[in-house]
């Protein structure tokens, strides 16, 4: 087998050195009646070429020929080729967690840079070196707020990603967490008046997302004021962190957490991604996840180490700040490379392009009869209400090789025919034109009376 380095002769010699007479004897401690006496029923073995073909075959049954306007916490942005080139370096790819700093400075310095970049973007003082993903990072932020405040009630904005909320509920189920949800108002933002009624001295944290699940920016400072009035934390989750290049960071929050997938991490059917968590210096000892710190070696040279490790499970065991022991280092490295490549100007320009494209698309689709139910400001994602069943519209878009968005009814039963649409730099004007034609076409075929008079913005190529 191509991955195994020992020859039959090597094995014989090694077996002799162990004093055993057969390989079987090495397993003597496994009782005979528990041993497998037949081969497992598994596919393979396959040659490299066959493996490649196996997965190419699977890749044929994907959406790879489609243009996608799906967002909802996962965004398709262009990934510069430099990222995978650098990630493929074996020293990064095949290293373990940097517990031996003398021979892990590469990973450590890169993570220190990641922490700095995330702190700069979020407007926080300190960031950890990544967590599993945005949903679990938000959950860790909730647990952290509960630890610090000693309170058990958390208030989740219903405008937050439904799956993030589900994760928080799963973790809270047996920890005595009392989860309440705050409704939204017509702007597509959290309802502040209702919030004011439910936050009280038992609230550990108010948890919002901004831009929220509907793409709408939340009034962070007003919500912070409300939360802080009662001694509760404000946690802000950010699922589209590209927005932070152009949108004021939620600096009034106590914890900013979220998902860095947008920064050069593949969409990959839901993972692996790159959660992050940033906060204020004074809470650093209550933070979950790994932290890299700057220090010196015995000769006075600058170096980096994993630090404040006493928070972690391998030392504190049942009293640890979290049970997490893996971070997402390689994804954090991808994000670091991505952010360094784009840099300040590149990232801001990209964000401006996303903003322009999304607003143009919203305008164009509204012009052919769709409505935009939420009035709050948005970045690169927005909700549209279609005049026809949203499912029919999506299927018609599929005919055009377009994934036209996410049906919100799946998560919000009251939102019939509401679509969540993300427009990144990967979606060009021509795609939006075609979608508009599809939408207008419905008007002609089935809803001519309703759409009568709406000018179909048909453009010729």
């Amino acid at each position, binding site marked *: 087998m191509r991955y195994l380095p020992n020859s039959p002769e090597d094995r014989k010699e090694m077996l002799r050195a162990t004093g055993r007479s057969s390989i079987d004897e090495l397993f003597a401690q496994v009782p005979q009646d528990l041993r497998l006496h037949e081969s497992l*029923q*598994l596919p393979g073995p396959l040659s490299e070429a066959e493996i490649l073909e196996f997965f190419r075959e699977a890749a044929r049954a994907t959406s790879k020929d489609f243009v996608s306007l799906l967002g909802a916490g996962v965004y398709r942005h262009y990934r510069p080729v430099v990222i995978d080139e650098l990630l493929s370096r074996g020293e990064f790819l095949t290293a*373990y967690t940097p517990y031996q*700093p003398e021979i892990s400075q590469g990973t450590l310095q890169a993570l220190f840079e990641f922490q700095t970049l995330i702190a700069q973007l979020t407007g926080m003082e300190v960031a950890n070196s990544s967590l599993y993903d945005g949903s*679990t990072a938000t959950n860790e932020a909730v647990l952290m707020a509960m630890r610090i405040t000693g309170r058990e009630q958390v208030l989740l904005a219903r405008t937050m990603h439904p799956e993030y909320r589900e994760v928080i509920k799963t973790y809270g189920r047996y920890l005595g967490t009392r989860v309440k949800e705050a409704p939204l108002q017509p702007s597509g933002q959290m309802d502040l008046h209702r919030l004011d009624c439910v936050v009280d001295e038992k609230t550990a944290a108010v948890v919002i997302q901004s831009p929220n699940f509907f793409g709408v920016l939340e009034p962070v400072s007003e919500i912070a004021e409300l939360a802080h009035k009662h001694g509760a934390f404000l946690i802000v989750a950010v699922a589209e962190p590209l927005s932070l290049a152009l*949108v004021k960071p939620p600096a009034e929050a106590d914890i900013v957490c979220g998902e860095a997938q947008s920064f050069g991490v593949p969409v990959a059917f839901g993972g692996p991604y790159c959660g992050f968590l940033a906060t204020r210096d004074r809470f650093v000892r209550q933070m979950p996840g790994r932290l890299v710190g700057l220090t010196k070696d015995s000769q006075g040279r600058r170096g980096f180490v994993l630090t404040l490790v006493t928070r972690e499970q391998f030392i504190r065991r049942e009293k640890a700040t979290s049970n997490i022991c893996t971070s997402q280092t390689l994804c954090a490295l991808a994000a670091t490379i991505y952010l360094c490549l784009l840099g300040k100007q590149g990232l801001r320009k990209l964000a401006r392009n996303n903003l322009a494209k999304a607003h143009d698309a919203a305008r164009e689709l509204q012009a052919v009869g769709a409505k935009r139910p939420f009035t709050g400001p948005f970045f690169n994602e927005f909700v549209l209400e279609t005049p026809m069943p949203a499912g029919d519209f999506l299927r018609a878009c599929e005919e055009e090789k377009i994934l036209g968005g996410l049906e919100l009814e799946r998560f919000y039963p009251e939102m019939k025919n509401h679509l969540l649409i993300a427009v990144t730099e990967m979606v060009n004007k021509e795609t939006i034109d075609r979608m508009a034609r599809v939408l207008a076409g419905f008007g002609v075929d089935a809803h001519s009376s309703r759409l009568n008079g709406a000018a179909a913005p048909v453009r010729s190529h």
Partner: protein
Amino acid sequence: MSQSGGHNGRITEAIPHITRNEALIFERSSAGKTGAEVAPLDVPPVEAPEVLGKDFYREDIDGFPEVSELEVIRHFTRLSTWNYGIDTGLYPLGSCTMKYNPRINEVVARLDGLATDHPYIPARLAQGCLGILAETARCVAEITGMDAVSLQPAAGAQGELTGLLMIRAYHEDRGERRKYILIPDSAHGTNPASVTTSGYEARSLKSNDRGCVDLAELERAMTPETAGLMLTNPNTLGIFEEQIREVCLRVHHRGGLVYMDGANMNALIGIARPGDFGVDVMHLNLHKTFSTPHGGGGPGSGPVAVKRKLEPYLPTPTIEETGDGFYKLNFDRPKSVGRVRAFYGNFGMAVRALAYMLAYGADGLRQVTEDAVLNANYLRARLSTAYDLAYDAPSMHECVFSDRRQAARGVRTGDIAKRLMDYGFHPYTVSFPLVVPGAMMIEPTESASKAELDAFVDALLAIAQEVKEHPEVVAGAPHSTRLSRLDEATAARKPILRWKPS
């Protein structure tokens, strides 16, 4: 003193050498540079402060770097050379299973479609990805002898938590409120941390003098309030729990469930299956046993596998085949513990793990196990002349020594580990498991060749000799790395966790 080129006929080292003194990216930055051009707009531009509103508009990202593409390439290439990886050489970290990460896995995970499908695409367009998840789950179930698998947990620790939540849901569904989970004292620290996160209370179970579960202790601890036992098998000492079936029987007899931490499955695949021992729920680490790269600390993936009776409690959604070979996601699972992360888990890791299993096939995977166990036993045989074995019980895929002999001369396991770096090896796992004073935990995996193992043994034997003759050399190691020992105390006393402009 000497001209460039030589001194006494030898090349003098240029200090500071450029690749060994790479600055932070922020220190390389200067305004106006970029490493990526953004494609031009095909729609009219907008005034961001106007569209977003003045209250929301951000003027600047203070301190953010600005560098060119070549600088990025050089920066990270140089940093990478300061790392040691499996590709560099033997990486014998006990309990971490640092095996070769096949490159074809990386190639297939990056295929267009697999790397680009959105998790919310309609099922009819997701058959390729769902099929991969389903096939990976099927292989995991077959390998472990369990009935159902969820690939949702993002890593081993989350797999543990998911399993514990299922145990809890199972008991509560039967109207039982139990409080404790038993954990052998040799367990990894994650186990008790996960127990706490699940709302249970961890109770430590003292191991017997062979490093295994003590049946009498277990019997005493299995009260009606005990929800179950969480054990690793082979355990963290690399010892197979010979009485595993009896252990499971006694836990079951008292109404408890058995959780197995699958961290050490590299010792078992093709040899025996936890499902046949009586284990009710377990997790695997795709980044250990199934060769997905550790990547400097993640991403991992921690699938959970359960027996039929726990299937209703698996996280939502599950992947189901509708009969005609069509896969769909099932969200309608009223007894489920819920969701432990967004979407369906680390799909990209499942792709790699499946590629690994396909490469070997069933008999190949058995060969992997045999080689891993043979390698560990070979090391054990050759090293036990100079180092004290922690326990006499036979080793499976890893062996644990104690620094007892060396500690008597003032050299500890951590020092020996650092000295190994001077010999060109990554150290073993230091000071774990906690039940062994001065533990040196060595797991060579199947990826180590005999020649490499011999070189590693020679290094450790040489170090043992150094401990006798020049202990200060070992105690002050490493001497040949780019940096010497780092001041971890100051790093923790006055944490500097980010760069700031000076």
